[in-house]
């Protein structure tokens, strides 16, 4: 079982922002996380940033996973700002998909915790998301 230290499953939002509709990867990752015992909110593609912020808040998730295959990672900094403005700075954000090597540091500088490239293994993704969820739980206000 990959529950958090307190026995409570990690809660993860798996989504896509921007105009790219290639959602196979996000579905596969959602299934990986589910099979690892996490609770996954899955939205499908074409989400707007304010909607992702609203979902992150309403569902009180620990980690947001953004799948990006066609340059949508370039609007992730905008999402990071919107999350901070909504008081959700404790939520960890990961990006997976096609991110050119020279743009990874830009994402990290904007607060993205982890970038997964093609070829990332199931074990690698599950372990990283689990660890980030535990960090988010520790920082989140109790109520």
């Amino acid at each position, binding site marked *: 079982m990959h529950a958090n230290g307190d026995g*409570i499953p990690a809660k993860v939002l798996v989504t896509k922002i921007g105009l790219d509709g290639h959602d196979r990867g996000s579905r596969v990752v959602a299934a990986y996380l589910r*099979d690892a*015992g996490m*609770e996954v909110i899955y939205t499908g593609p074409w989400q707007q940033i304010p909607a992702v912020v609203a979902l992150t808040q309403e569902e009180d998730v620990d980690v947001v996973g953004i799948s990006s295959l066609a340059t949508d990672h370039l609007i992730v900094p905008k999402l990071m700002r919107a999350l901070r403005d909504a008081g959700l700075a404790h939520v960890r954000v990961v990006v997976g998909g096609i991110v050119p090597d020279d743009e990874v540091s830009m994402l990290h500088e904007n607060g993205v915790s982890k970038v997964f490239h093609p070829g990332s293994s199931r074990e690698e993704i599950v372990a990283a998301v689990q660890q980030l969820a535990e960090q988010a739980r520790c920082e989140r206000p109790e109520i």
Partner: protein
Amino acid sequence: MTDVAAAVDRLIGGDKATLARALTAVENAYPHAAELLEALRPHTGCARVVGVTGPPGVGKSTLCNALIREWRTRGHRVGVIAVDPSSPLSGGAVLGDRVRMHEHDQDDFVFIRSLAARTNGGGLAASTAGAIVVLDAAGMDCVLIETVGSGQSQVDIAGVAKTTVVVSAPGFGDEVQALKAGILEIADVLVVNKADLPHAEQTARQLRIMLGLRDAQRWQPPVVMTSGHTGQGVDQLAEALQEHHDSIVTDTPAATQTHTVADLLRKLASEDPYVRHLGIEFITGGSGHASVRMRVQPSHISFNGTCHGGALFSLADAAFGLASNSHGVVAAGIDAHITYPRAVKVGDVLTAGAVEETRSRRFATYRVIVTRSDGATVATFTGTVATVGGARPGAPQ
């Protein structure tokens, strides 16, 4: 140290972040969850709680989406609990119900929360009842619960919802058969969804026949045909839910006469612009008595930060007015007195019950008690009316 009292204040004041965290606390049974629920309970009782269940694939989520839209056009605030199954092997879950409700993601007056059923087998998450308390206290007019797709025996929903909607669809022939064995009994309203498909009318007919086989009951569940996809029939569903809601709030074991008096009083309350302006809701009434309910809004607060005495007076006066006009003749207040022994805060749900104490040909006196949801008396009121007119047109004799 968690400051539950401060959290309660924020939640009642409409803070979404606190609402979200309160739901998490209840869902995960955090140490302060019980104290939180206890503190929220006085603020509950106003929401109508509607459960939606039925076999997987009949379109529950899409129907919920259309129902939320219908309620929003009626001005209601809506809280949604969407329950999805957890894997019995990994314990994990993919919660996808809200995919079909995404048009409401950015509506400030709709709050959707997904819950995994975890180890609970009855079609709900164990924390559902607590989540309803939280959403009710947060000021939701309607709380909608979508269960995991249920076959026959997942009937937990009837224990927590005030109105249970069982959804079917054409082409689910065997499932319609299955409905009668288990979840048909818990239905307050039956829906044939996907009514834009062939054979919908036939499915509705089968359900009506099955209902006809049951013993006659006070509430006969209607069969409503809808299409969550096109929105067709969803207004009729909202009406059917309203009728069932009205039937439970006036559920008194009295003769038919009382029901007609209650109908008159509900009509008077619904036609009173001042009562509607304050958000006062008629609960029940009969010959010489009436009760009404109000949630204290920020606009009801005085400069002292507590509920304005005038608002409390108005609530008591609404019950007084209805009770004194329950005899079918027009009565007008000529004197009233009120005492406020306890301060009232924003978010408190108050009930005013008026009872007739004396009645002569010309005058009648009433006592009204205003209580909070936790039973505390917050105001007592006495009033006198004079009979000023003849029989009210349309009133029961």
